[in-house]
């Protein structure tokens, strides 16, 4: 599904602030793969997502999604087949527009001049009710009135309304309180399972990294230093994971959020 071959990215080349964010990274995801990503601060996790989304052109290498070379495809064109959630719940929806208007925009059915029909509204209502957080009764309220967790759940629904070829979750529960984060993770699991969406999820919670999905990647210094799935992954504990990192990266894991949450 996703085929990243030997991509690199250096920011501010030739200056004192030169930073090799990604160095010769290669990653293949099979259709339906749900890989969790962990890594230390500045390991290049978000940069990898930005590269997939087309925030910048990589210095080298190629990116293929669903059999199509998207290395040079503009960001908004790729966005049609990529769903992305950020850590900041405010980023994924328009606060001044109502819930149903946001959903209509995400659904993207019909032409530019098409209107939201009663059928659309009914579909939205049904999909909202499956989130189980009571948004189905608030469809005409502006999104700005929702809490962070509600907004993140809505964004998740918007991102997967037309099931994307790949879903990128960039610590999408990190800004939520533990109970809400748990709920949003639950919803994430349900939606991903239902549509069998190929997913990459960055997390700072090592336990989540092992519990969710079928594959775990560890990043350091712009590379993938450890990649595990199947039986080996099933037997791993958080401690094992820390040890693997030490071996793979040749140093201790130094993500302050990971250390604080474990």
């Amino acid at each position: 599904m996703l085929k990243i071959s030997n991509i690199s990215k250096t920011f501010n080349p030739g200056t004192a602030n030169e930073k090799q964010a990604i160095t010769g990274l290669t990653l293949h995801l099979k259709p339906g793969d749900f890989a969790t990503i962990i890594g230390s601060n500045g390991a290049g996790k978000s940069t990898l997502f930005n590269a997939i989304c087309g925030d910048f052109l990589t210095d080298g290498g190629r990116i293929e999604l669903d059999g199509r070379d998207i290395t040079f495809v503009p960001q908004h064109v790729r966005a049609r087949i990529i769903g992305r959630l950020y850590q900041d719940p405010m980023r994924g929806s328009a606060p001044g527009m109502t819930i149903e208007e946001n959903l209509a925009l995400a659904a993207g059915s019909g032409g530019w001049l098409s209107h939201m029909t009663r059928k659309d509204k009914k579909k939205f209502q049904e999909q909202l009710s499956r989130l189980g957080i009571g948004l189905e009764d608030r469809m005409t309220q502006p999104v700005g009135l929702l809490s962070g967790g509600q907004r993140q759940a809505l964004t998740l629904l918007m991102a997967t309304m037309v099931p994307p070829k790949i879903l990128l979750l960039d610590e999408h529960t990190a800004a939520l309180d533990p109970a809400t984060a748990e709920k949003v993770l639950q919803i994430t699991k349900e939606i991903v399972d239902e549509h069998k969406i190929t997913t990459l999820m960055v997390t700072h919670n090592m336990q989540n990294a092992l519990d969710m999905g079928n594959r775990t990647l560890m990043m350091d210094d712009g590379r993938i230093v450890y990649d595990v799935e199947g039986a080996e992954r099933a037997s791993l504990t958080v401690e094992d994971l820390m040890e693997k990192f030490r071996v793979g990266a040749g140093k201790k894991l130094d993500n302050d959020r990971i250390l604080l949450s474990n």
Partner: protein
Amino acid sequence: MSIPVMLSLGQTALELGLICSLTVLALFLSYTMLNVCDLSTDGCFTLGAAVGAIVAISGHPFLSILAAMGAGICSGFITALLQTRMGIDSLLSGIIVNTALYSVNIAVMGGSSLLNMNKTETVFTVVKSALENTPLKSYYILIVAVLAVALVIAFLVFFLNTRLGLAIRATGNNPDMVKSSSINPIFTTTVGLCVSNAFTGLSGCLLAQSQKSVDINIGQGMVTIALASLLIGGTVLGKGSILVRAIGVVLGSFIFRLVYTIALRFHMPAFMLKLVSSVIVILAISVPYLKKQWPMIKRRFLYRGKEER
């Protein structure tokens, strides 16, 4: 003040308010929805007036309306092009286009800075002669203005609820979201500015034809006047559906003109219009801000007082 005088003042305010409310509706789209402060409004208003006048003078009263709107679209397209494709800041591109339009407008008016339409057939004279023997005949300006405003509002309500309209609103409301979505902000900004400038051009065209002349300065300060009306409208009817808010905007424009007309009656000189509209814009934007700052200002003040004691 006698009742007939008051009524006639009210009618003038209503006519002017309605015609200028088309510009306010244009800013409702560009400023409120798209979050772009389009400073080319003044020039575009005059462009609409000039193009409309030239076409009307050459004998096409209805075509003049379309021509003025078309001219507005071109001007909006260039403003959008500068800010989306050429890396020019959005305020600056408005100012640049506005400056350029001054020359364009004089060129359109055949090198003169004043055009007279006393004997020209315009939409207003057409409606006036159609209403010749009816009791409505002294309201012909009002009728044309109401019709234009109603059509523009109907269009806006339709347009802003289409998928394209939603995309335009999202572009102004959350640029971060739009950046990572499949909406192309260059496209939505361009369409938004083209549509909004079409209304500005229409507004200029109708104002010129209703007062039967165009002067190169007809649009000067229009952006501030329209902003003042927009902000007044926002405090009157700022929440709710697009329709309610659009009506609020028109109401704001009328209230602005009414206050201005009354002020003129109380011997405020006419040249004060632009100062007054500037002050309204300053107040409307700064008061909510200062209100938010007020607790801190107050605390600081009290705190300092205590220290000295």
